[in-house]
C-alpha cells in the first residue's frame, strides 16, 4: 500500500468535514495529483452539493460495493480542475447496506489508480464511521476550538488506533481567541496531542462558496485557498513549518492573533 488513503473525520457534526474534504481535494488536484473523493455519508450525502456535482450522479459507492458498476462508471470527473473525481454516496440507502470490508475494498482499489483518496466520513461513531475508517491509512481530524468539538475529536482519536492523525482547526475566530472566549490553536494541540495540519479562520466566504457548490480553493486569488494549498502539500509529505508560511500574510496575521501579542 502507498499510504495515500485519508479519512476526514471529526466525531461531532457540522465542524466542516465535507468542506475540508472538498477543498483539500481541489488543492491536491491543483498540485497535479490524481485525486478521488469518496463520500461515505450514505443516506445523508452532501459532498456532491459542496462540489456542485449533484446533477451528474448516475452510480454511487453502494452500487460499486455491490458490484453493479465499475469504478469509472461511478466516478464523476470535476471539469473545473484536472485530476479531481468524486465517488458519490447513495442517498436512499442505509449506512448498514455496506460492510467495512466492502468499503475497504472500494477505497483500496481507488488507492491503486489515484495518487490520493480522501474519504468524507459521516458524523458520529456508528456504523458509517467504522465503514469510512476501515480502509484508511491516515486520518485528518477536523475540529473547532469549542469544548464539545474537542471532546468528540478526542473520542474519535481513541477509536483510530495507531493510525497517524493530523488536526485541522476549523472556524477559528481570532478576535474571540484574543478576548479569551475561545481556545487557541496551541490549546487544541495540547489537549489532543497531535500534529496540526492547518488552521482555518471562520469566514462567511466559506459558507457562501459551499452553498454555491464552488469550493473556495478553486479560486487561487482567495486568501483561504492558500491555506488549503499548504495543507495539501503537508498531506503529501512536505515539511512546511507554520512560521515560514508567509506566502499570503494571512497566516502571520492569524498566528499573531492566535498566539497573542500587543
Amino acid at each position, binding site marked *: 500500500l502507498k499510504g495515500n488513503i485519508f479519512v476526514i473525520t471529526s466525531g461531532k457534526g457540522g465542524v466542516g468535514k465535507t468542506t475540508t474534504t472538498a477543498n483539500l481535494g481541489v488543492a491536491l488536484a491543483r498540485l497535479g495529483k490524481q485525486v478521488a473523493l469518496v463520500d461515505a455519508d450514505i*443516506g445523508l450525502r452532501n459532498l456532491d452539493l459542496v462540489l456542485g456535482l449533484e446533477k451528474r450522479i448516475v452510480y454511487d459507492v453502494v452500487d460499486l460495493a455491490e458490484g453493479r458498476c465499475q469504478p469509472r462508471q461511478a466516478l464523476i470527473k470535476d471539469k473545473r480542475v484536472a485530476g479531481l473525481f468524486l465517488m458519490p454516496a447513495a442517498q436512499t440507502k442505509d*449506512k448498514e447496506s455496506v460492510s467495512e470490508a466492502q468499503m475497504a475494498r472500494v477505497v483500496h482499489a481507488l488507492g491503486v489508480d489515484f495518487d490520493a483518496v480522501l474519504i468524507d466520513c459521516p458524523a458520529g461513531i*456508528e456504523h458509517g464511521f467504522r465503514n469510512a475508517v476501515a480502509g484508511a491509512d491516515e486520518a485528518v481530524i477536523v475540529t473547532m476550538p469549542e469544548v464539545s468539538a474537542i471532546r468528540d475529536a478526542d473520542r474519535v482519536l481513541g477509536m483510530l488506533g495507531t493510525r497517524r492523525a493530523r488536526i485541522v482547526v476549523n472556524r477559528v475566530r481570532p478576535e474571540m481567541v484574543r478576548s479569551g472566549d475561545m481556545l487557541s490553536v496551541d490549546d487544541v494541540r495540547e489537549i489532543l496531542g497531535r500534529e496540526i495540519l492547518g488552521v482555518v479562520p471562520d469566514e*462567511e466566504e466559506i459558507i457562501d462558496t459551499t452553498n454555491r457548490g464552488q469550493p473556495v480553493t478553486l479560486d487561487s486569488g482567495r486568501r483561504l485557498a492558500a491555506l488549503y494549498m499548504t495543507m495539501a502539500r503537508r498531506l503529501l509529505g512536505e515539511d512546511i513549518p507554520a512560521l515560514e508560511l508567509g506566502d499570503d500574510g494571512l497566516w502571520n496575521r492569524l498566528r499573531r492573533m492566535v498566539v497573542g501579542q500587543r
Partner: protein
Amino acid sequence: MSNDVREQPELIALPAPVETVSPPSEPVTEAASQSTAPTQPKEQRVRRRVPAAVKGRAIVITSGKGGVGKTTVTANLGAALADAGKRVVVFDADVGLRNLDVVMGLENRVRLHALDVLEGRCELDEALVRDRVRRNLALLPAAQNRDKDEIEPDDMNDLVDELTDTFDLVLIDCPAGIEQGFRNAVAGAGEAIIVTTPEVSAVRDADRVAGLLPHDMPARLIINRVRPGLVRKGTMMSVDDKEVIVATNRGRSVVDMPGSPTGQALRRIAGRLLGEEIPIVDLTEKKDWFSGMLSKLRFSQSKAAKG
C-alpha cells in the same frame, strides 16, 4: 424551498402535520381508537399516542446534519420551558459522544447515565442530574464509553415513558445522522423538532430526516444560525452568534443573557411549544444601520459587565 427557509427564522410548522398544541389532558384524535386507561401496563410502540392526564410530552430534537445546534437548542429550550413553570427533563441520547452535560455546565456532576438505568444498576431518580439554577430542570446523561448499538428502540421507549410520568416535558437530544442512535432517540418521542440552518446541506439533511420520522409524528422546524448578513448586508447575527459560543463553552444558558436576540428567540419558541400564539419575527427586516449599532452597543455593555 431554501428561500422560504431564510426568511422564516425560528419555529414554524412543517408542511405535513400541523400539530395541535393542546394540553396533554385533551385527547388527541388519533388516540381515540386506542385503549387509554392510565392504569394500563406499559405498551410497546403505541405509547406515544397515549394522552393520559399524567403523561408529559416527549419531544425529540433532531436534524440529520450535525453541528446545526441540536444540543444548544435542547439545553436552552429546556431552561426556557422550566422558567415557564414546567417540570422539564433533557435527555442526552448521543451515547458515546455526549455533550449536553458540557453545554449545561453539569459535566462534573454526572455519575450515572441512562444505560445504568436500562441495565438495572440504578434507579432513574439516581441518574438524573439537577440543573444548577433551575430546580425543575433535570438532565439524564448518556454513557460516554459505550456504543449506540447497545440500546434498543424499545428500551428507549420504556425509559422515556417512565420520564413522562414525572415530567411535563421530556426533550430528547438526538445524535447526528440517521443510524441506530437516531432511531433510538426517535423511538420514545411523540413529537419532533427539526433543527436546521439556512445552508443547502443542512436543509437537504433536514428534509431526509423529516421523511424518516413516523408519518403521524407532529414535527416542527427551527431555523438556526440565520445570518441575515449572508441574505442581505449586516452583521447583527454574527455578534449574537458569539454570545452563543461563549455561553455554550461556559455551560451557561443563552436564555439567561440579557439582550441576547438568540435567547429571546428561544423563549418565544418555548412559548409556542406551550401553545401560545407568538408571531415569527422576520430577522431580515430589522437589518438597518440603527438596530445594528444598538445590538453592538448592547453586546459591548454586556461584555463590560462581565469584565
